[in-house]
Structures are given as C-alpha cells and as structure tokens.
C-alpha cells in the first residue's frame, strides 16, 4: 500500500517536472536581420564554391582512383622495361664473355 503510494508520488513528481520543463523551454525566434544577412552571405559563398562540390564527392574519388591506377601502371611499366633492358645487357655481356673465352681457347 505504502509502496503504491510512493510510486504514484514519484510519477506525479516526475510529470510535474515535465510540465515545468514544457513551460520553461519554449522556442525563441532569431532576429529577422540575422536570418536574411546570413542567407545572403551563404548564397554568395555558394556561388564562389569550387566546382568540386558540383561534381559530387564520389566523382572526385573515382577520378582520384583512376589517376592512382594510371600512375601505378606507368610505374610498373617503367620498372618492367628497366628490368628487360638490364636482362638484355646482361645477356649481351655474357655472350661477349663466351665469345672471348672461345677465342682464348682457340
């Protein structure tokens, strides 16, 4: 019985706090001058924004990805060509050694 009364008192107290919050926390209105000035500034800024935002971030990310792939491909191609050149040079040198060794024997 006493417990029920305590629970009822508690919930009454909480709803009293709620109604006090409702009375005290009410929306306020910003100054109309502030709203219109900020709007003008934002519109000006929006007009000056670089075209990046107009393409969208995903387009920029894709473009970056393709560029990185191209650079990586170019680097690998250069590396492969360098290895090929070194191999050819080594083969050429080896064949020259073999020729000179054969001449020495002869």
């Amino acid at each position: 019985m006493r417990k029920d009364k305590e629970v009822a008192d508690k919930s009454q107290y909480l709803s009293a706090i709620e109604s006090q919050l409702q009375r005290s926390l009410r929306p306020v209105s910003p100054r109309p001058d502030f709203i219109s000035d900020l709007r003008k500034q934002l519109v000006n800024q929006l007009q000056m924004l670089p075209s990046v935002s107009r393409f969208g971030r995903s387009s920029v990310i894709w473009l970056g990805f393709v560029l990185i792939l191209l650079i990586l491909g170019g680097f690998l191609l250069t590396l492969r060509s360098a290895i090929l050149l070194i191999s050819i040079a080594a083969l050429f040198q080896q064949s020259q050694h073999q020729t000179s060794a054969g001449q020495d024997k002869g």
Partner: protein
Amino acid sequence: MEFDDEAALTNAAQGDIEAFGVLYERYVGRIYNYIFYRTGNTADAEDLTARVFYRAMRHIGSYHDRGLPLSAWLYRIAHNVLANWHRDNSRSKEVPLDETVTGKADGQHPEFELVQTEEREQLLSIIRCLPPDRQQLLILKFVEHFSNYEIGQIMGRTEGAIKSLYHRTLLSLRDEYGVVLASDTEMDIDEKG
C-alpha cells in the same frame, strides 16, 4: 516550388541556390533555438548558427554517405560546433546562463522578458549544470518537439536508450536538484491532485 529535403539537398549539392535557400529557411530557426539554449545568449547563438550552416554548405556533397536524415546531420554539426565552443570557452571565460537567457544581460529575447519568472531562472541554470547529452536531450524534446526516435537519430543512440536517458535525467533533476524544484512542483501536484 516545393522541395522535400532529399530533392532540395540533391539540387543544393549541385549548386542550386534556390534549393539551398529552401533548406536554410527550413532549418535555420531550429538550429538557432538549439544553439541558443546551449549557449545562453543571442550573440553566440548567431555566431555558431552561422558556423553550422557554413560547415553544412562546405560538406553538402558528402551528406549522402552518412545515411542520416538531413535534420539529424545538421544537429550533429551543431553539436560538434557547440562542443568546440564550450572547449574554447572553458579555457577563457564562462557566461552564466541565468544572467543571459533570463534577461539580465544585453541581447535577450522579448519572449523571455515577457515571461520571466523565478521558476524559469532556476530551471535553466539547473539544466545548464546537467551533462551535455542530457541538456541536448531536453532541448530536442521540449524546444524542438522531436520524438524519441528522431532524438535517437540525432544523438546516435537507440530509441530505448533515449527513453532511458530521459527517465534518468528527470530522476536526476528530482534527486540532485529536488530542493530547488520542490516548491514549484508541489504546487503542480496540488493542482493536479
């Protein structure tokens, strides 16, 4: 022309000034209210509201990746801007809410001048002493009239977690600040009882 948030945002991200204006008009008052109750004065509320919209404008292209309603996204930006402001302010100075919001200092709202009671002064200074997440919850619920689900989206929590946080906030208002509130609430209970 009528835009829903999604359409307005898509157009605004492509540089459509009219669409951006629609979004701005739709949310500037709400964001201002939210910030005003967290800062306690109009000058800072205006400054921080402007920062929120500048930041939103710069990142408007990345909005879709976040999977949040636009309102939640804007409130999160506002929350971050406020967190930075509180951090910077705590290093320099503190403006007591009861001197600003309740109309003792310059730059107050006429609404506060009209209905300026001791109850409100006490309650606002008490709310200001609560942890930031509880302040945020009370403002979103009572000033902005958001549902628990919407508050959950803004605060990155589940609806159940918001309900629980709300209940704990009321209890802490009762337990920790009960003495201050007692005289007013007893009156309410008498009226209801």
